[in-house]
């Protein structure tokens, strides 16, 4: 099953590679991994999307907790949570395609953030499935470049991850 795991980690050099190393050394899969500082400059927050049986996920959280730099680990998918990913996608948008492309972006609540003579760059936020759906909906030949951030997640309501 797919799990989204949030990790608070000391903002130390090498912390990211300790975590990614652990995944590769033990043969766990990483679908996406994002990391950025938090409101507390001494910590970073990492979101890992992974797949595995319950036993594997249990080992992953235990192994993460075992890393000395890791402060807290939460499997967000254990309860209600919100998940978002940002995609920037550059598409062909010449005179012929322009209107269609704009309409498609509107349907998916995307925004055109850069325009050139024959391209649009569209910004789109949502869960992974929505971004996939947008890509599917386009004429494949029109896609020039895509870049995705990988998922970030947060618990719903009073579910809070902090020290």
């Amino acid at each position, binding site marked *: 099953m797919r799990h989204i795991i949030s990790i608070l980690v*000391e903002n130390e050099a*090498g912390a990211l590679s*300790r975590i990614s*190393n652990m995944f590769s050394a033990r043969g766990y899969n990483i679908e996406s991994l994002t990391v950025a500082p938090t409101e507390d400059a001494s910590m970073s927050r990492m979101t890992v999307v992974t797949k595995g049986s319950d036993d594997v996920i*249990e080992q992953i959280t*235990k192994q993460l907790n*075992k890393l*000395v730099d890791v402060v807290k680990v939460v499997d967000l998918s254990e309860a209600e949570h919100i998940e978002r990913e940002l995609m920037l996608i550059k598409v062909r948008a010449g005179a012929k395609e322009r209107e269609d492309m704009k309409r498609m972006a509107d349907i998916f609540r995307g925004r055109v953030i850069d325009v050139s003579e024959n391209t649009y760059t569209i910004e789109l936020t949502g869960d992974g499935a929505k971004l996939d759906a947008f890509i599917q909906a386009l004429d494949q030949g029109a896609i020039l470049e895509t870049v995705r951030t990988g998922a970030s997640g947060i618990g719903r309501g009073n579910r809070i991850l902090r020290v």
Partner: protein
Amino acid sequence: MDRIKTEELTGAEIVIRCLQAEGVEYVFGYPGGAVLWIYDELFKQDKVRHVLVRHEQGAAHAADGYSRSSHKVGVCLVTSGPGLTNAVTGIATAYMDSIPMVIISGQVPTHAIGEDAFQECDAVGITRPCVKHNFLVRDVKDLAVTMKKAFHIATTGRPGPVLVDIPKDVTVNKAEFHYPETISMRSYNPVRKGHSGQIKKAVQLLLEAERPLIYTGGGVVLSNASPQLRDLVKRTGFPVTSTLMGLGAYPGTDKQCLGMLGMHGTYEANMAMQHCDVLLAIGARFDDRVIGNPTHFAQNPRKIIHIDIDPSSISKRVKVDVPIVGNIPDVLGEFLNSFKESKTRNISSWWKQIHDWRAKDCLKYDRKSKVIKPQFVLEKLYEVTGGDAIITSDVGQHQMWAAQFYKFDQPRRWINSGGLGTMGFGLPAAMGAVLANPGATVACVTGESSIQMCLQELSTCKQYRLPIKIINLNNKYMGMVRQWQQFFHGNRYSESYMDALPDFVKLAEGYGHSGVLVEKPADVEPALREAFKRKKDLVFLDFVTDQAENVYPMVPGGKGITEMILSEDL
């Protein structure tokens, strides 16, 4: 209030002062460019003594053997680049067996890091997968607190090696020195006490057990839980078996002890493991060499209680019913309290079953052989040393025979590389054991292949007068490789024959020691007695042993633990 007086010291001075503050007696190391300032400070004091090895792998193993035989932290000091990479095998060895060690490595100056400088390597990157934690100290102001963290992390929770990488300029720069007495880290707080509800559940299971078994591992030795284990085994009257790493925690000569279990475990231990109804696992990790095929193991239903300091060891290979995370002596103490007057069941029919298994006498071998049987050497070694020596070993058949035939009655007497299986471990580990246990009898059980992997340390033994007795079981083969080739590769002995062996007697003499060649069974005991009389000398005993002997019982890789090959089957 008085201001705490602090002094400005160089990084190199700080390193030494930290080691002194930690009460470090010995540092095992090898100098080089990046650690010259640290060596300079070592030279100026005499509290911390330095042991100069001949290869950095030896330094790491010696620090490791020092720690295993004493429960103190092993410390080693190596230079940047090749100094560090040479030590990596030793660090990984310690990591796999959870040995508390602090490794100090030199690094190129901070401004040169990343520029492919002379003797530069990414020490923290290279060691990351084989240390409990590591640090690169970029600022001398962080040095003392980093050293404190290193010792703290190495010795608490599940122990392990911690590396501190120190760039050369950091050893020259100055900072105020203050060594913190305690340290707390928000990201690192190992538990000690077990969950009382879980302990209650576990005790209840044990009280109801009809076919109980206690299965102990290296964690019992590492946490010094031997007294509590002994109390528990006596209190319950249950049978107990141990992994390779746990030998000695419970006396090997006691009748409740079934000996070692696993790939080369005893018939009775493996049968009991498979057929018990309640299994109490303490500081052990159900690894592949112990339970064989987990699917086969799961065929027999049993309730499993697992005590371990490391949550990730629990339910990793085998699903556990009652997990208890905590420090073993604390948890076992609570077990004993909870038992109070409660009575365990009558398990005499279980014991009768075990006695029947025991009657197989699975360790029997040909005692009338005209060539020296390796098992015979170990039996005699046990007799001659009164079962009271510290035995280190290398890796292979000799290691298994030592584990089977030397009955350890005390913990920290059996020093071997269980997890990583590092050939070359035995001799340098014995050096550490001698220094940690002055006056103790220390023998290194090895083979002609293993001993050659860290042979250079014979020179270190000479320099520091380390009176190790080397028991070389010389069958001219990498015996365990040969055994697998015989069983599973159609007798094709691919590259396992050791041709062009040195004359070990002359070799020992070349290093300034004594060597003795033993070729006949009748000479085994006299040679051992003679060697162990020489309390101040290293004696290299080269036993010419049966080339075709195999270790039995044997569970082939991937098989269930009751699917043993016994000597009588052949």
